[in-house]
């Protein structure tokens, strides 16, 4: 399969699910997809196209919370990023952990740092932050404010 065939295949297969398709460079493709079709598309890319799941990046943007799932297809040297845009008020999306285990930790991390809910994730317990970290404060959100009054932010001499 060449790169063009691959992209065409994806485009055709997920005609109704793809919102936006950006082909930035020979090695990078960004596909925006409806959140409800995520599992379908990700499964197809991971299982049938034998892509490797690199990581997911959660981004807090002005209007949405975005998650980009990066898959690399090594034999073609293409990196496909599936983008889903989630509602900022209550971001939630289906978990990909049941599809491949590699998504487990990163979903925990995003849950913790960005406050995204992953429906169907086996264990969304805390991974990184300390116990005293307050609930509902997500450091990677853009509106994160220092909650700890005691924190010293200069050299502290």
């Amino acid at each position: 399969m060449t790169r063009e065939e691959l992209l065409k295949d994806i485009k055709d297969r997920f005609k109704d699910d793809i919102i936006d398709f950006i082909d930035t460079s020979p090695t990078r493709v960004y596909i925006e997809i409806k959140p409800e079709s995520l599992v379908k598309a990700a499964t197809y890319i991971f299982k049938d196209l034998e892509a490797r799941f690199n990581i997911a990046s959660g981004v807090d943007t002005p209007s949405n919370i975005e998650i980009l799932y990066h898959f690399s297809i090594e034999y073609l040297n293409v990196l496909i990023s599936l983008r889903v845009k989630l509602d900022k008020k209550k971001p939630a999306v289906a978990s990909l952990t049941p599809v491949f285990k590699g998504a487990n930790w990163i979903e925990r991390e995003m849950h913790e740092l960005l406050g995204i809910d992953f429906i169907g994730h086996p264990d969304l317990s805390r991974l990184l932050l300390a116990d005293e970290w307050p609930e509902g404060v997500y450091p990677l959100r853009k509106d994160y404010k220092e909650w700890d009054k005691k924190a010293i932010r200069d050299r502290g001499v």
Partner: protein
Amino acid sequence: MAKSVIPIGPYHPLQEEPEFFTLTVDGETVVDIDIQIGYNHRGIEKLSERKTFDQSTFVIERICGICSTNHPFAYTRAVEDIIQVEVPERAKYIRTIIAEGERIHSHLLWLGLAGHFLGYNTVYMWVWKLREEILDVMEILSGNRNSYAMFKPGGVRRDINAEDIPLVIKKIDSIIPTLTRLKKAIIDDPVLHARLKGIGILTKQEAIDYCALGPTSRASGVARDVRKDAPYGAYDRVEWDMIVTENGDVFDKVVVRILEMYESIKIVKTCLQNLPDGEIDLNIKDIPPGEGIGAAEAPRGETFHYVRSDGTNRPARHKVRAPTFMNLPTCKTTVIGETVSDATIILAGVDPCYCCTERMAVRSIKGKKLYNGQDLIRLSQEKTETIKKKMGIK
């Protein structure tokens, strides 16, 4: 014996970093493992948003000291991906030299520590002695033994002086004989065979499922190496081989790492000898809005950076994915079902390093603490001896 919980870490004297595993053990067999991270989480992704693209290289260099160069490497590649530029040829070579030098030092470091875990303290000392030469080389080239501060979006900060090159090559050559001796000692050693072969097996399918990376996956027969798959830097301009073995056990991971050092030495030397002339920096003027992805093959696997720019000189979002983040969960399959004595070396086989993973526990364990990390190391060392015994070696 009832199930008992073995906490490893977070501080035990020989692992340099805080980490925390809890092994649940039934008798001698590990039945569950819980990995807790977070002792090292410093919010680097957020910090990076405060710094300019230029300054960020320093923050992410400090994600971790062991592969302090591959993070900037991936990051600068991500930034260059936003702008869609290629760095000058000379800069590519210099980057490659630094990255490979680091790989040698990192693998040596790991080898030393693994030797220690197996009860070969003497090997630990000898290997680290070797490592000093590489660190000297890095100091000559970059100005510090670790944290090289060489990378910047668009090129490198420092040039390599032509007069340093002979000395550097001499130093690199000087480690080869000792390395070969060590290689023979390790690869031929029947005790190590017995001790490491067949334990902690990560099958090819599991490696794919867990999206394992670097030596961890290459030892399982998954030929994954960013340097070959999506060549960057000067990797497509020099001859080198990807080391892949099939068994996926700890022994193969050792072998992969040792053989990789030879490839790295080869790459460094070729690059130094063929260093092209020219600019070392593009002097990037602006970074347009957009998003970019960069990957680099760190000693432990692929580092992956996603950078989004909004047109200012600061990243709007910077996502870092370290190899260990993907590799560490593989422990779940590899450790479970093995004996406690083997657990340490299996965990170590991944070469876990939590720094980047953590950009990721005091969880109180209600169970009885019966062993600690040291016990585990000891158990591991004891097992070496057992096997030696079986084979009739004192």
